[in-house]
């Protein structure tokens, strides 16, 4: 499932121009609500809305592109939530809202609340994006920062840590993209019996679990400078620490996945993983 390259290009351009360190610092104080208006002007909130209803008519893989970029650029405000809720509800804001019947977790207080699987799906993409940003910044920093007469990235111990970090980020990216593709193919799951449920559960479970090692390594590689307010690493690590508990923690999803696997047995579990 490939996303629209034009959309990708549009998103990268708007986000990289707008979401500068200065803007992000200001948005910390103001809430950054004007970013949603900017994104709405070019229709990013309507990526999932059908063309005949005035939307972009995109797929869930397109929605991944927007949500991942929101995490990777630390976009302030509720663009991802608005995009997903418009995708579920349609342009008029009506229709059946699928509600997860297993009430695990909750969304951050300041964000509009989504049905459980949709919220978990969305967070997985934002988390994959924030983790990618931490990886990029860590690799860049270790290439520039010199200690003992050479860049940190020349030390094998540092290389091994960054390689491990990259593996975790790859895992988050792959699990999240898979979940978006499954939702596109089989519909947004309402509950555990629905076909795309497992892929969404896996994505959120993995992303929530990996938020810890990802932030640990990224902050470890940066040393004290990454711990400052000004340096801005926190724009990516703090959301990860919040989001990992949104719409189900790792253990909530793991328990639900495990209960099913044990109750259904190995053959049905394998079938659910490969359908």
């Amino acid at each position, binding site marked *: 499932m490939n996303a629209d390259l034009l959309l990708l290009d549009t998103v990268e351009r708007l986000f990289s121009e707008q979401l500068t360190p200065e803007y992000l610092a200001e948005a910390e104080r103001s809430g950054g609500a004007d970013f949603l208006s900017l994104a709405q002007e070019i229709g990013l909130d309507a990526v999932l809305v059908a063309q005949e209803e005035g939307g972009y008519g995109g797929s869930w893989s397109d929605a991944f592109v927007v949500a991942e970029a929101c995490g990777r650029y630390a976009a302030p405000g509720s663009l991802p939530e608005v995009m997903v809720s418009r995708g579920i509800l349609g342009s008029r804001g009506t229709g059946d809202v699928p509600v997860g019947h297993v009430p695990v977790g909750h969304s951050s207080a300041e964000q509009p609340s989504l049905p459980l699987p949709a919220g978990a799906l969305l967070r997985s993409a934002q988390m994959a994006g924030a983790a990618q940003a931490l990886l990029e910044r860590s690799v860049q920093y270790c290439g520039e920062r010199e200690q003992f007469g050479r860049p940190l990235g020349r030390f094998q111990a540092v290389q091994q840590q960054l390689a491990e970090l990259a593996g975790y980020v790859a895992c988050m990216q792959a699990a999240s*993209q898979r979940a978006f593709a499954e939702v596109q193919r089989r519909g947004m799951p309402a509950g555990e019996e629905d076909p795309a449920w*497992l892929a969404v559960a896996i994505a959120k479970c993995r992303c929530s679990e990996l938020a810890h090692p990802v932030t640990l390594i990224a902050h470890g590689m940066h040393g004290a400078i990454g711990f400052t307010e000004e340096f801005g690493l926190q724009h990516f690590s703090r959301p990860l620490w919040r989001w990992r508990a949104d719409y189900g923690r790792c253990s909530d999803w793991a328990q639900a996945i495990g209960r099913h696997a044990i109750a259904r047995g190995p053959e049905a579990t394998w079938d659910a993983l490969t359908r």
Partner: protein
Amino acid sequence: MPRLNFPAPELPAGADDLRREVRAFFNEALRDVPVAERALSWDACNPEFSRRMGAAGLIGMGFPHEYGGGGRSQLERFVVLEECLAVGAPTGFHWFADRQSGPLILRYGSEALKQAIIPRICRGELCFCIGMSEPDSGSDLASLRTRARRTDAGWIVNGTKVWTTNAHRAHYMIALFRTGEGGRRHEGLSQFLVDLRNTPGIRIAPIRDLAGREHFNEVHFEGALLPEDALIGAENNGWAQVMEELALERAGPERYLSCQTLFNELLRVLGDRGASAAAAAAVGAAVAQLGALRAMSLSVAAMLQAGESPNLEAAMVKDMGTRFEQSIPALAQELVDLPADPSSDALPYQQALHLMTLLAPSFSLRGGSGEILRGIIARGLGLR
């Protein structure tokens, strides 16, 4: 730094039917295969089983029709491989040939060689082994010393390969020998096809592993004479060819499904005996790891199909995948209070636990250690 991207490919039309056929085939073919053999899966050699798979068209699926292959895509082949591993089909006899030696010969071999070898691989008749490591060259493969010297009669080979899985069963070895003098050590290496059963001057000595099994070997070349056309690909281009081969070797589903029979038996035992919430969460976290690794591996299969060279991504699959499969015996032991037991009247779970506990250390060694893989990843990130 390259942006990591793992798009989720859609499986081709017909993949569902293929999967159903493969499941039906294994359902029948595995009926009399004991759990001890299924637990080993792609580590278990069963020539008769490989012939049956060949007759069913399940080997060489990606090879061209004209050489007896299935002419299918990488993604369809992926479906078959993962179904083999999920049920623990004993595929070790043909696995290397199907995965890397066949593709290598198709890419670099002469027309005559392709016609002589590939159809027999597809029929499940041939076992290949891979001659890379040497007594003084493990992770530092480019330091290898076994030399092939060109003479009027052919190539004369002297030296020793070690840890060569299946050499004592194999018909052929794809070997990496030193052919050049001086220069950079990555240069001057070449790949050869060695007929292990018809070449004087080759001595094969099995090495017993810590589980008491004999599957890997020392292979001594003592003036062995190989014909001129045993050279595969270009002389002194061996390093580049081997690196291509390793990309095929590293990203497949066998890098996270080596313990799948044990994991399946664990689910069965927990289903029978009941599981606490904590046990369910531990199992669920493992299923989530499995699902995420599958998403990564499938994405790499699509990149290979598109003709890309996803060496960085493949190294990630193997590093994370082998760490996952190595964790399964310890997880099982924590969740179920039943001892490992190799006797055939013990529960299948206990037999599988016994084998996989002992074998797990090898998972991250074969095909490149974790440290080497993370070095490759670091290079891909621009750090080396």
